[in-house]
């Protein structure tokens, strides 16, 4: 078995060979290298030098759980797949502890480990195949096709399938999205503008739907700005908020009779305060980004 191990490792592609750590401290750091629970299990089986056909399930389960704990200690989020496998291992272990049904003949007894063993063998095979493919690709990457012919230049076109058509469409959409995002960033909406907008809206109408105001936002930043502008105006007793029912729409209404105000007439104090608020927006932005990055 040891010999075969060495062969398998020697054949593994250089950058793909998992770096097996020697000491406990080392393997903790290496934990995220295990791509999935099957890789971790294969590693443990190899490390313990046990037969894949006769896995000492209690020992391997204990080790497996120890690894997961190690991950938690290091604050590495343990992927769901690892937990599912932990449950499977514990389940197999408990089944192994059950007394055998004396009425069932020996050869008909099912080993609770069978399914897992099959899965591990299958996984091992594909790892071998991946390695063989890698070797082939290395050789192929060293061969080259001819340089472009003159005739190619007269025909600089690409053949297409319906899936390529879809791909191209997706790329166009992504490009468009990126463009729109740049546009919005360039706009740099300010809170003073938002206050002026809300003022304008409530001079034109008695009541304005807050939901509609929020729906018009084209970025998270703008959304936060509208929100802060409304709060600001409530505080300044310029507007009042009404909600007819819980979770219903909030209506913005005038609190004091105001004259028609154009955008330029936003008072200086308002603008200064608005600037202060904008710092708050920046912080809020950061928080939003953080949230996004921790989302799975």
């Amino acid at each position: 078995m040891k010999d075969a191990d060495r062969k398998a490792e020697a054949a593994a592609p250089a950058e793909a060979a998992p770096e097996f750590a020697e000491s406990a401290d080392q393997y903790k750091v290496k934990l995220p290298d295990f791509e999935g629970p099957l890789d971790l299990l294969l590693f443990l089986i190899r490390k313990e030098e046990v037969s894949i056909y006769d896995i000492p399930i209690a020992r391997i389960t204990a080790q497996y759980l120890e690894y997961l704990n190690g991950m938690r200690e290091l604050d590495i989020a343990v992927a769901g797949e690892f937990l599912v496998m932990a449950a499977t291992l514990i389940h197999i272990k408990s089944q192994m502890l059950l007394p055998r049904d004396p009425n069932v003949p020996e050869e008909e007894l099912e080993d609770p480990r069978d399914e897992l063993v099959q899965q591990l063998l299958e996984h091992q095979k594909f790892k071998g195949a991946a390695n063989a493919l890698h070797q082939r690709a290395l050789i192929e990457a060293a061969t080259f096709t001819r340089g472009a012919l003159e005739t190619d230049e007269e025909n600089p076109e690409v053949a297409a399938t319906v899936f390529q058509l879809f791909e191209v469409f997706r790329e166009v959409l992504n490009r468009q999205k990126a463009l729109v995002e740049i546009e919005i960033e360039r706009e740099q909406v300010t809170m003073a503008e938002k206050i002026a907008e809300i003022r304008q809206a409530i001079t034109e109408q008695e009541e304005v739907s807050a939901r509609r105001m929020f729906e018009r936002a084209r970025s998270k930043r703008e959304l936060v700005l509208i929100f802060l502008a409304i709060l600001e105006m409530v505080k300044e007793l310029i507007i009042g908020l009404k909600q007819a029912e819980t979770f219903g729409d909030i209506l913005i209404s005038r609190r004091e009779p105001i004259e028609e105000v154009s955008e330029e007439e936003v008072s200086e104090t308002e603008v200064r305060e608005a600037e202060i608020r904008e710092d708050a927006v920046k912080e809020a932005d950061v928080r939003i980004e953080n949230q996004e990055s921790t989302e799975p």
Partner: protein
Amino acid sequence: MTIEELKPIIESLIFVSEEPITVKQLAALLDGEAKADIEAAADALVEEFQARGGGLEIRRLAEGYQIRTRPEFSEYVRRYLKSQPSARLSLAALETLAVIAYKQPITIPEILEIRGVTSTSAIKTLLDRRLIVAKGHKQVVGRPMMYGTSDDFLIQFGLNDLSELPNLEDFEDLMTS
């Protein structure tokens, strides 16, 4: 290196080069090799391909060495180039076709808005190839022409109808990850 050792290296360099490759260029790639040896090896290749009588020849031109098909077989080569599928489209045309396929009926200004670049020459190509057809005027200011895909489009892309176009939902599981 001996001249015999130089030959296959020079042969592969002539082969991958888009333009005739000069002795000077070859010498720069084969540092340390004498230009005279390089030239001797390349000339030997010219003769060898001549003697083989195969479909290819290496020529010595003023600008350097070049590999190409022998003129005797140009008829077949032309036949091959003509046989290339008619669905070969430039990227601009392909993008425009994709936008039209998914957003039809659509006007040229609307395509501009999505692609970010004008598509008039691509539209012309697509009309010439009968992949798209005009679908009447849009009832807005300027009454621009609307375009949609043709029956030829369906045939060339192996579709029974437009509902068979792969849709965004099919790939959503990939894009949301």
